[in-house]
C-alpha cells in the first residue's frame, strides 16, 4: 500500500513539477564503505551544456570546468564524512607504477560494462540469468591488479551532465504552459540533469554498487541544483552517492538482528 501511494505521489509530482529520480542497485553482499578505506575516484566525466531554444545541447567549456571542480570538491567532503581517504584523479598518468594506457583501458572497459548495466538494469531488458542476484557485473583481473599495486580498496566512476535552459528555452517553456489556457498545451523540457556513479571493489574487481540520477521538469524555471554552484554540486553528489544502501543479504541480516 505504501508503495502504491509512493507511485501515485511520484506520478503526481512528475506531472506537476518535474522530478528527481534515482535508482540504485547493489551486490547482494554489499556494505557501504565506512571507516578506514581508500577510494580512488577515476577522472569524473562532467559536462555542462546550454539548452538552446530549439532544444539542442551546446557544450560550455567554462561552465564544465567550474562544475567539475565543484563536483570534485563535493565528493571529497562527502567521502571525508564516511572516514575514507580519497584520491580524485585529474590525469590518467597520476598513479605510480600504473600507465595512462592501463587507466584508459579500465575506463573503456567500465564504459562497456556500465552500458550493459544501464541496458539490463535500467532500460527494461532484464536478463533471466541475473535475476535475484542484485548487481552481478565485474571488471575482472585488471581492476584487481590495479588495487593490488596501488593499495586502493575501491574505485568510483562518475558521469554527470547538466543541461541548463537558455533564456530562449525558458521563454518557450513559459509559452508552452501559457498556451494551455487557450487550448494549445505544448510543454517542453527545460533544465535537466543526468548522472551515474559506479563503485568497483578493487579487491574482487566486481561492480558492487551502481546508481543513476535523473532530474528534469517541463515547468519553466524549475531547477534541481545547478552544478555550476558548490551547493548544486553538493546536492547532486549527495543524491548520487550520499545514500548508498547495503545489498539484499546484508539488509536481511540487519533486519534479523533487529528482531
Amino acid at each position, binding site marked *: 500500500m505504501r508503495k502504491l501511494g509512493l507511485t501515485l505521489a511520484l506520478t503526481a509530482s512528475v506531472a506537476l513539477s518535474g522530478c528527481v529520480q534515482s535508482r540504485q542497485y547493489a551486490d547482494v553482499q554489499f556494505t557501504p564503505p565506512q571507516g578506514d578505506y581508500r577510494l580512488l575516484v577515476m577522472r569524473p566525466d562532467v*559536462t555542462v551544456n546550454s539548452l538552446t531554444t*530549439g532544444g539542442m545541447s551546446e*557544450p560550455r*567549456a*567554462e561552465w564544465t570546468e567550474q562544475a567539475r571542480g565543484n563536483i570534485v570538491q563535493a565528493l571529497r567532503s562527502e567521502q571525508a564524512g564516511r572516514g575514507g581517504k580519497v584520491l580524485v584523479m585529474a590525469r590518467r598518468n597520476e598513479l605510480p607504477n600504473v600507465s595512462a594506457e592501463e587507466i584508459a583501458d579500465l575506463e573503456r572497459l567500465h564504459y562497456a560494462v556500465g552500458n550493459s548495466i544501464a541496458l539490463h538494469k535500467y532500460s527494461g531488458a532484464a536478463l533471466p540469468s541475473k535475476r535475484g542476484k542484485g548487481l552481478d557485473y565485474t571488471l575482472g583481473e585488471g581492476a584487481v591488479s590495479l588495487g593490488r599495486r596501488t593499495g586502493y580498496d575501491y574505485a568510483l566512476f562518475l558521469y554527470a551532465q547538466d543541461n541548463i535552459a537558455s533564456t530562449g528555452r525558458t521563454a*518557450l517553456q513559459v*509559452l*508552452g504552459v501559457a*498556451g494551455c489556457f487557450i487550448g494549445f498545451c505544448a510543454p517542453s523540457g527545460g533544465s535537466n540533469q543526468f548522472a551515474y556513479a559506479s563503485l568497483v571493489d578493487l579487491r574482487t574487481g566486481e561492480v558492487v554498487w551502481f546508481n543513476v540520477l535523473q532530474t528534469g521538469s517541463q515547468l519553466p524555471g524549475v531547477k534541481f541544483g545547478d552544478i555550476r554552484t558548490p551547493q548544486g554540486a553538493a546536492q547532486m553528489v549527495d543524491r548520487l552517492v550520499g545514500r548508498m544502501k547495503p545489498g539484499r543479504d546484508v539488509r536481511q541480516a540487519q533486519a534479523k538482528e533487529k528482531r
Partner: protein
Amino acid sequence: MCMRCEISRRSLLAGGGALAASMATGIAQARTRPADMVPLIGPGFKPTDEDEKGLWQLMDRAEEEISGSNLLIKDPELVSYLQDIIGRVGGPAAKDMRIYLAHIPDFNAMMFPSGFSVIFTGLLLRMRNEAQLAGVIAHESGHFLRRHMIRSWRDTRRKSDLFAIGAMAAGMGGAAGGVYLGDYVQLAQLGTILSLFAYSRAMEAEADAMGARLIAEAGYPPMEMATVWEQLIGEEEASARYRRKRRRRGTLFDTHPSPTSRMADLRLSAAEVTVAGRAYDNGRARYLSKLAPIRQMLLEDQVKLNDPGGSQYLLNTLAQDGWNGMLRYYEGEVWRLRNRAGDDARAAQSYAVAVAYPDAPAEAWRWHGLSLIKEGRSGEGKAALGRYLQMKPGAPDAPFIRQMVG
C-alpha cells in the same frame, strides 16, 4: 565532416517528404570557385566564442580517446609522412593540425572541429599517388580552414530555434483561431531538415574548391583530386553491378554532393588553379615506397571484405600503373574467396602469373603450389611449396606444409 558519411536518414522522411523532395531537386547548385576560398583562420587559431570553446573542449576529450585507440596504426614513419603532407597542404593551419591513421578498410577521412583528422587505411589503398592523398587531406584541411564545423553548428542551432518558435507560434495562433496547423508544422520541420543538408553540401563543395587550391599551391597536379572521384564512382558501380544493384544515386538527404557532380566541379576547379608552364609532381614513387611496408596488409583487408566487384575494380585501377606480383596474387585471392564454379581455375592462373614477378609475396607461392597439386602436377606443386617455406619458414602453417612436401 567526413568525406562520405553514411547515416540512415530514412527515419527523417515524413509524409510530405516525397513532395517536397521532388520540388527541390530541380534546383542546381552553382560551383564554388577555388579563387573565392580564402582561409578564415590564421596560424595558432584558438576559439574565443563560448559555443566554439565548448565544442573544442568536447573535441579535446574525443581526441584523447581517438589517439589512444588500438585501431590506430602508430608506425612512426608512416604517421610522420602523413603529418608532412598535412604540413604541406594545410594552408595557414599547417602546423596546428594533427592526423591519425585508423586501421579500417574503408574509403573515408574526416576532420574534427579542433583540427585533428582521422584517415582510414582503405583510403591509402585506393590512392595511386601522393597527389591524390594530398588532395583528400587538403579537402579535410579545407573544412578546418573554412571553420565549417562551428558554422554548421550555428546554422543548425539557428534553424532549430526558428523551428521551435515557429511551431509554437503556429500552434498558439491556430488554437486562438480554431484551426489545426499540425500539417504545416510537419512540412516546416521537413524544410528545416532539408536546408540543413543543403548547407552541408555547400560546405563540402567549399572544401573541394579549397582543397584544389591548396594542392595546386603545394605543387601537386590539381586534376588528381577529380581522378579520386572518378575512381570511386567506378568502384561503386562495379561493386553494385556485381551485386546486381544500381549505384546509389545522390538524393536530397545526402550530406555530400554526389561523386559525379563533385568530379565535374573538381575538373573545372583544377583547370582554374593550374598555372601554365608550372611543373607539377604527383609524388608517385615516394608514395609507393612509403606505403610498401603496409601494402600487403591493405590488400589483405580489402579482399576479405567479400566485395568481389569492388575489389576487382580496385585491383584493375591500381594496375593501370603496372601489374606486379602482389596485385596478381590478390586478384587470385578475390577469385578464390568468391568460390563460384570455375573460380579455382581463374585463381590458379592469377597465382601462376603472380609468382613470375620478383615481388610475389610468399603466400602467392603457397597458393600456386596448392593449386598445382590440385591439378595433379604434384612435383611442380611441391617445388612451389618449398619456395614458400624458404621465404616464410616461421609461417603458422609451416609444419603442415612441410608434411605435404614430404
